[in-house]
């Protein structure tokens, strides 16, 4: 276990180094000068002033030097300042990350709440009518792009029924109720596709689990079907689901970007979106590194989860 964590940490560091460097190179190689973000175009006539700003921000140094400087600061927890707002990147991140995380976890929670019982039931009734109906819906859910789901939800629940606000965000400090009202639609938009994926994954694993001998022997003990399904069948069927949930938590940042855009929510995804538009490279750099770190950490958590679920893995590792 400690050995695994050590190797994971090493991997995390290596990945972060590579990704941050790649981002840095990308920022510098691609067209679009950072100076445009610092000084309005019409103020760029004054060459001396431009040169002064360039010097001030270290834009004239070679790329490797600048990367080294950024890295040196990053190690101490300083991801630099936003070129556009002048605010520290870390401050911006700590301000916005909780918003994205809340939406993400509510979405994943909702999906699991729906997918676990439905997936188990579908597998239990494999090939019969309820299973066919569920699989049909899952196939449909899988085919829904997040922004289409979001638009449909906005149209029905915000514009027509007026139950939820169409856009905007309330901090939890304004009260849990108003906060949840603004979380509901974005989270649901993400949850529908996720739930469809989870249901399919769990169903197919569960179907093979239910063919195992130990399920037959549990049934032969006279246990109720529900007990057999949830106390014997579920746990061995969780491995793929856990992988997929981990993967989706890692990649859902992309999905939240879409809902944050659609619902005008000031989360991390929207911030990187605007940062890219404004050529705010420090911000892009910082957030990319953050997202990458998040992805690698989530994957490590998934590996630990395997061990919790399956005692056999615990021993071999």
């Amino acid at each position: 276990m400690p050995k695994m964590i050590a190797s994971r940490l090493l991997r995390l560091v290596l990945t972060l180094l590579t990704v941050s460097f790649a981002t840095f190179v990308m920022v510098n190689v691609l067209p679009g000068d950072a100076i445009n973000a610092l000084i309005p175009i019409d103020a760029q006539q004054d060459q001396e002033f431009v040169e002064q700003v360039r010097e001030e921000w270290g834009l004239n140094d070679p790329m490797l030097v600048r990367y080294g400087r950024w890295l040196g600061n990053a190690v101490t927890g300083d991801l630099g300042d936003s070129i556009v707002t002048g605010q520290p990147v870390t401050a911006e991140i700590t301000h916005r990350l909780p918003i994205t995380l809340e939406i993400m976890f509510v979405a994943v929670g909702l999906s699991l709440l729906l997918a676990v019982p439905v997936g188990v039931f579908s597998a239990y009734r494999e090939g019969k009518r309820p299973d066919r109906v569920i699989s049909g819906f899952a196939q449909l859910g899988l085919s829904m792009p997040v922004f289409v789901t979001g638009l449909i939800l906005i149209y029905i629940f915000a514009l027509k029924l007026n139950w939820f606000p169409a856009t905007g965000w309330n901090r939890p400090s304004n009260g849990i109720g108003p906060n949840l009202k603004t979380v509901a639609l974005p989270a649901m938009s993400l949850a529908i596709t996720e739930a469809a994926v989870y249901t399919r994954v769990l169903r197919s694993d569960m179907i093979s689990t239910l063919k195992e001998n130990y399920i037959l022997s549990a049934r032969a003990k006279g246990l109720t079907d529900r007990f057999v399904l949830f106390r014997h069948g579920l746990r061995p069927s969780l491995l793929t689901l856990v992988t997929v949930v981990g993967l989706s938590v890692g990649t859902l940042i992309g999905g939240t970007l879409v809902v944050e855009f659609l619902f005008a929510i000031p989360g991390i995804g929207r911030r990187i979106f605007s940062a890219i538009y404004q050529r705010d490279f420090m911000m892009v750099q910082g957030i990319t590194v953050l997202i990458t770190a998040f992805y690698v950490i989530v994957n490590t958590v998934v590996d630990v989860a395997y061990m919790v679920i399956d005692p056999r893995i615990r021993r071999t590792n």
Partner: protein
Amino acid sequence: MTTEGTVVATLDVPAPESEILRVEDLRTSFFLPIGELEAVRGVSFLLQRGRSLGIVGESGSGKTVLARSIMRLNVGANVKTTGRALFEGRDLLSLDSREMRKLWGSKIAMIFQDPMTSLNPMVKIGRQVTEHLRKHRGVGRQAAKQTALELLNEVRIPEAESRIGRFPHELSGGMRQRVSIASALACEPSLLFADEPTTALDVTVQHQILNLLSREQDQRNMTLVMVTHDLGVVAGRTDDTLVMYAGKVVEKASTIEIFGRTSHPYTEALMRSIPRTTQASHTPLVAITGRPPVATHLPKGCAFSLRCPYAQLKCHEEDPPLTPIGNSGHEAACWFPVGTDANQEAFERNLSDRLPQTLVVADSLIAGKIGQTVGDSPEEGSA
């Protein structure tokens, strides 16, 4: 109470107390894309309380399907079982799933072939031994743990205390099968099916497990049905033996009779394939020529006719019914039962016709001492 009363009342013959299981014309079919596969083709037998029965046959003979059909454990929508299986007077095949569940584990239990796969790898051993006890009898957690301990001790698992919280993969195969047995015994069932309980185990462990089963059966006055492909497992252990071939019973008798007066050529062939300690070392075992028939394409007449060294024209035309041999309840389904003059004639006729399977048997008769060992006491022969 009243429902039970009515069920008993509808029976033609009221079941005597001593009778625990009566199977009548049981048939099980699987409906596959390639057609209907009749795995069990009309099996009937009677089992008295406290006795033990061995069901013997090659793989594919329908013995496991028979046991699972009686227990209603065949999975899938494409299986159909007809006939009757009366357990303590109640037809198991007509019970609804709730009533069946009440019997499973508590009155009828089953031990499965492979302890590697029949224990849930992700559930602790203690819970697997007694979870049904808690469900059926409403026993509390602490009491269940106590029972689990007693059971594990009883099936001779060392350091039972520490094993309770372990997972199956942390135990050896033999230990796991002991756990399965402990679990099957937990609710003190009156009828126990053991489906090839030792096939997946090392030879050295097989004996211990079989002895354990026999001992428990004696102590608890439990009825035991042992399903196996190995006549040696049955020898000296079960009271009665039932030999199955291609979904049918071809011979049934007390185990002593089966070994002492083998009547069906298939039983005889199985007998030849048991290695014997009285044989000189390196004596080749005699395999049964040919393969078991495919259940979708059974031959006309006797299903064994194509592999039988005594097969005559009649055998290929008509399927022999079970007929009594002597008056001890011994029955065999053969037109030319072993040990009769008709059988000897058939053998000589086939020998002169140079029928391959007959030649194989004749060779082994010349080479070995099979003729004299078949009559020996079976215990020493079982491996």
